[in-house]
């Protein structure tokens, strides 16, 4: 084991996979100097700021047998390439009757809490989760970041890896061997019996802090990190509700058509799980506003430990 930051773990996944498979290459507007030094400009391509065409190049070359990794930078810029994702990357395998596979990884930094104002503060992952034909991973810590990015690069489908901007410096023990994290498997970050909190991406940290706070009051909280949004590990979430009878989803996005809504839908559709609920389900999301700049404004709209703990206490009042 070695201690790596979230950002360093992602970088090490890139460099290990490029060593392992010569078909892997990457495009970025600001490529990593270490990767460039190791693999040269043919496999680590410095691109002009043309997200749409970078994305289409990935589709075309993937159809010819390569395994491109596109670094969009922030998800904010990924929207410039939305057509190439929605109309090409997601649909091309299906439209052509499965003639070829399109193994592509799109990397996007996302998130709030950096005082960066509306355009540079957003999650975006629900938009991509909605598109049939795309897998979506959302690692919260360094070990999952490395393991999921490696799995994404080896997957034969387009995968978007959403990387928590606020978490880049967070350090964690990371296995030095080839530790893959399977796509589609959630992680129970903390077992508990009274309330299930499903926390997305960086929201795992305030959720765990809230669980600590509530433990001191004698409340046992289970915290689940789905890690992958598509395909979603529904079983782990339902199983937890069978135990706790209460569900909160923490998602630092606006609530309408969010992943939080989707998680609630897959719970509500299953009567065996639904009938175990002892309280209404709750989304802890942002209000439906663009993220503001000034610290007191931004702190007001984002989910935090206090709002999560308060929601847990509210649900306890129902039994």
């Amino acid at each position, binding site marked *: 084991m070695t201690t790596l930051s979230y950002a360093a773990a992602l970088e090490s996944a890139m460099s290990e996979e490029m060593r392992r498979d010569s078909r892997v290459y990457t495009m970025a507007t600001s490529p990593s100097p270490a990767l460039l030094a190791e693999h040269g400009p043919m496999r680590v391509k410095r691109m002009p700021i043309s997200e*749409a065409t970078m994305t289409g190049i990935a589709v075309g070359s993937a159809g010819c047998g390569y395994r491109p990794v596109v670094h969009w930078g922030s998800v904010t810029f990924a929207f410039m390439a939305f057509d190439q994702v929605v109309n090409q990357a997601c649909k091309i395998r299906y439209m052509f009757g*499965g*003639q070829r596979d399109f193994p592509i990884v799109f990397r996007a930094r996302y998130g709030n809490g950096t005082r960066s104002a509306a355009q540079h503060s957003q999650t975006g992952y629900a938009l991509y989760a909605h598109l049939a034909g795309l897998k979506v991973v959302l690692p919260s810590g360094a070990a999952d970041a490395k393991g999921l990015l490696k799995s994404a690069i080896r997957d034969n489908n387009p995968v978007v890896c959403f990387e928590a901007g606020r978490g880049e410096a967070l350090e964690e023990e990371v296995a030095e061997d080839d530790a893959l994290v399977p796509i589609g498997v959630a992680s129970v970050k903390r077992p508990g019996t009274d309330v299930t909190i499903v926390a997305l991406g960086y929201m795992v940290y305030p959720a765990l802090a809230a669980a600590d706070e509530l433990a001191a009051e004698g409340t046992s909280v289970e915290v689940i990190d789905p890690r992958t949004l598509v395909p979603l590990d529904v079983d782990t979430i339902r199983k937890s509700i069978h135990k706790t009878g209460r569900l909160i989803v923490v998602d630092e996005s606006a609530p309408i058509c969010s992943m939080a809504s989707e998680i609630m839908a897959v719970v509500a559709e299953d009567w065996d799980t639904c009938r175990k609920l002892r309280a209404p389900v709750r989304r802890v999301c942002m209000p439906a506003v663009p993220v503001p700049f000034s610290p007191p404004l931004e702190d007001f709209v984002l989910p935090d430990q206090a709002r999560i703990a308060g929601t847990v206490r509210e649900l306890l009042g129902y039994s």
Partner: protein
Amino acid sequence: MYRQMVLIRHFEELALKLRQEGLIHGVVHSYSGQEAIAVGVCANLRTTDRIVSNHRGHGHCIAKGADIKRMMAELFGRRDGYCKGKGGSMHIADFDVGMLGANGIVAGGLPIAAGAAVAAQLEGSDAVAVGFFGDGATGEGPFHESLNISALMKLPVIWVCENNQYAGDTPIEQGLAARSVADLAAGYDIPGKAVDGNDVLAVYAATREAVRRAREGAGPSLLECKTWRRHVHAQRDVPPPDRRPPDLMAYWEARDPIPAFEIYLQQCGFLNADQMADVRLSIDRDLDEAVAFADASPYPAPEDALEDVFAP
């Protein structure tokens, strides 16, 4: 080349007829009138070279060597179609012959063609890629991005603009500020050439030079082929009215690429009228077989709709 041009023409006229009869579903964008471009370009290509097409893609498929039986079955929405009935007219692809797909998004295929050229570069092969697009695509950002990136990376790609003068209903002079599409090449420091897109030999010669450059590693070229589509932009249940001026229609009808090539072939003594009639007859027999093949192929099972989204 003559046989292919006539095959495309007859395929397209038949497709329109079958569309009106309801055997072909959805929208058909006819390539009729633009045959000299697909044929003149693809005559320079090998199977290992790759092309990306647009919504008006049947001609490119045929010129690159796709099987008309499987094309027709796809238009019919049948199981033996190229895409198992999941694509239809706007999404026929045959990756085995280097046809990386027709594409329903204007300019959407150009970055994909650049990707095929990147693949050729990574392979270290001398394969080239061709991106076909219409004049309307010059209004899209990815057209300019693709030209710029292909020039920066010296990609082995030939950008072929089929300027049929009208983007839907909009004449090119109302859609493009530049005097010609070929002029745009100068801004990206790549060769740009305008040719008569109804003259198959002119298209062939211009493409040969662009392909030679691309194979030698000298980078991309932009070819503007001026042409005319013989039919309305898109054939639907109720075809929209053709608003193009009648005098222009007459001007271009007199410049139909196939009779022009026939005169040339006769004058040079390559083919006489009887031989041309034989070519047409044999093509019509092949098309009859393609229709019979398509008609005999079953529809896919409804639940097949759930297959092919993800690779295993």
